[in-house]
């Protein structure tokens, strides 16, 4: 099998050779511990500082506001648990900090919040979304209470690509915070957004922002958290006090170098790249929707350039993924059959899609390297795959 058409970039991306090149010296030559005051240590410390500067530049933030972590999941855990822990003593007994989020967050957010709910540390409102995956701003505003301390909303949903109105929410919260006794902090999970959308923290008016390297052509195992100056969070990892005491553990120098380089690369022709990818996405959507019994999930217009997601009637998603994979086409599904917990995707369920429909979900996520030829090949072979599987299925 020679062809490899990788359309699972929302799951992870290929590491950019330029990123690898930037990282390599830090494994075998410049391998010092960034906390040591010798030559090798200083070299490592400089590399970490340089990467932090790059991340800060991309986000329009100050270097002191960037914390390196192992993943977006860790960033989210640190942000939410750290923020709530710091605010606990501001609340009287029987009163709990309130958090507003959506039903279509990544599990890193949902499970972190459920954990705090179970421990009695927070109360959480999970906002509904409409059929296209958008939250309703009126409902959102109504959900705010005196005890609300955190709003956490996913910027781009990883399954359906819908973009939430982060800028509007940020602006609104900034406005009402002026009159509130207790400020509301605003976090966004920008994991899927960082490659193509504006993630400058002052444009978004976010106080906290999580991101990960492996969705932007850096390796897996490195992430970052932006924490606005003045926002207090309590460390969740105790130890040697690295990352200004917020995230102990010896700095992962080569990976930190990698995420800095990768973020810097996302900035080059960002708008042009986003347009190119969006055009290919639209070409794919148009082609796939020609197949009978196929519909689009998410919003037609308010969607990230890289995600094309569908429901295919009368076919199970995993079977489509396997058949595509045999032809060298790599895609993904939210079908229960492919989930660790064998439950249908919580995102598709939140859109009001019944399980018998969400079993047939199919997601293609494009990357910077996707070509028109690859898209056309998918459009060419997918109808046959779907037809074969439908023929095999019983009529009921």
């Amino acid at each position, binding site marked *: 099998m020679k062809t490899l058409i990788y359309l699972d970039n929302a799951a992870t991306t290929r590491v950019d050779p330029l990123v690898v090149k930037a990282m390599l010296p830090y494994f075998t030559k410049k391998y010092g511990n960034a906390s040591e005051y010798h030559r090798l240590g200083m070299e490592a410390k400089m590399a970490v500082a340089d990467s932090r500067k790059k991340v800060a530049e991309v986000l329009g933030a100050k270097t002191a506001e960037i914390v390196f972590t192992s993943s977006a999941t860790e960033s989210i855990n640190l942000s939410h648990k750290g923020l709530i822990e710091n605010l606990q003593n501001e609340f009287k007994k029987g009163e709990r900090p309130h958090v507003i989020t959506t039903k279509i967050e990544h599990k890193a957010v949902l499970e972190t919040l459920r954990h705090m709910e179970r421990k009695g540390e927070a109360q959480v409102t999970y906002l509904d979304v409409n059929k296209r995956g958008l939250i309703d701003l009126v409902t959102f505003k109504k959900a705010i209470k005196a005890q609300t301390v955190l709003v956490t909303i996913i910027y781009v949903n990883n399954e359906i690509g819908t973009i939430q109105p982060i800028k509007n929410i940020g602006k609104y919260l900034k406005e009402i915070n002026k009159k509130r006794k207790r400020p509301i902090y605003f976090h966004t999970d920008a994991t899927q957004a960082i490659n193509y959308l504006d993630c400058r923290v002052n444009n978004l008016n976010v106080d906290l922002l999580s991101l990960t390297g492996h969705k932007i052509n850096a390796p897996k195992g490195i992430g970052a958290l932006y924490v606005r100056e003045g926002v207090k969070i309590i460390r969740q990892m105790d130890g040697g006090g690295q990352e200004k005491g917020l995230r102990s553990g010896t700095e992962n120098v080569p990976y930190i170098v990698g995420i800095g380089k990768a973020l810097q690369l996302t900035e080059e022709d960002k708008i042009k790249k986003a347009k190119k990818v969006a055009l290919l996405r639209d070409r794919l959507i148009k082609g796939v929707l020609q197949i009978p019994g196929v519909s689009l999930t998410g919003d037609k217009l308010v969607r990230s350039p890289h995600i094309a997601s569908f429901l295919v009637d009368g076919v199970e998603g995993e079977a489509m993924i396997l058949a595509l994979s045999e032809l060298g086409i790599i895609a993904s599904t939210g079908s229960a059959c492919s989930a660790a917990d064998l439950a249908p995707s919580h995102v598709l369920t939140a859109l009001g899609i019944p399980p018998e429909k969400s*079993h047939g979900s199919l997601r293609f996520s494009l990357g910077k390297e996707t070509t028109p030829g690859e898209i056309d090949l998918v459009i060419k072979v997918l109808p046959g795959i779907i037809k074969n599987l439908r023929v*095999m299925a019983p009529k009921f």
Partner: protein
Amino acid sequence: MDNPFEIIYSKKVMNHFLHPKNVGVIKNPDGEATVGNPVCGDVMKFYIKVEKKGKEEYLKDIKFQTLGCGAAIATSSIMTVLVKGKPLKDAVKIGKKAIIEALGGLPPAKVHCSVLADTALKKAIIDYRKKKAV
């Protein structure tokens, strides 16, 4: 936790998924049964033809239709291969364990919901006996 066979399909599973045996419908079957439901994700329909040789009843023909994941299709296919031409009394003895063994293993998560083939066959045989009794 890191046993790759807990998450990946064996060559035999892939082979039966990509080139399933005995897919289709038998017109005027002696017995048929549908198991599973679309809400759970997997639906299997089995059709059988039974032939009597002396006192023994044999599965002369068997066909299936399946809506489901790779494991559901592969287990349906291997089941038909395992039982085709066998006496009914032997065919009903083939359970989940034999199906999984014949496929060279299955990820544990796939066993519970997708290995419906043994139930489908047993129900098709029950249907045959009911029809015969009428």
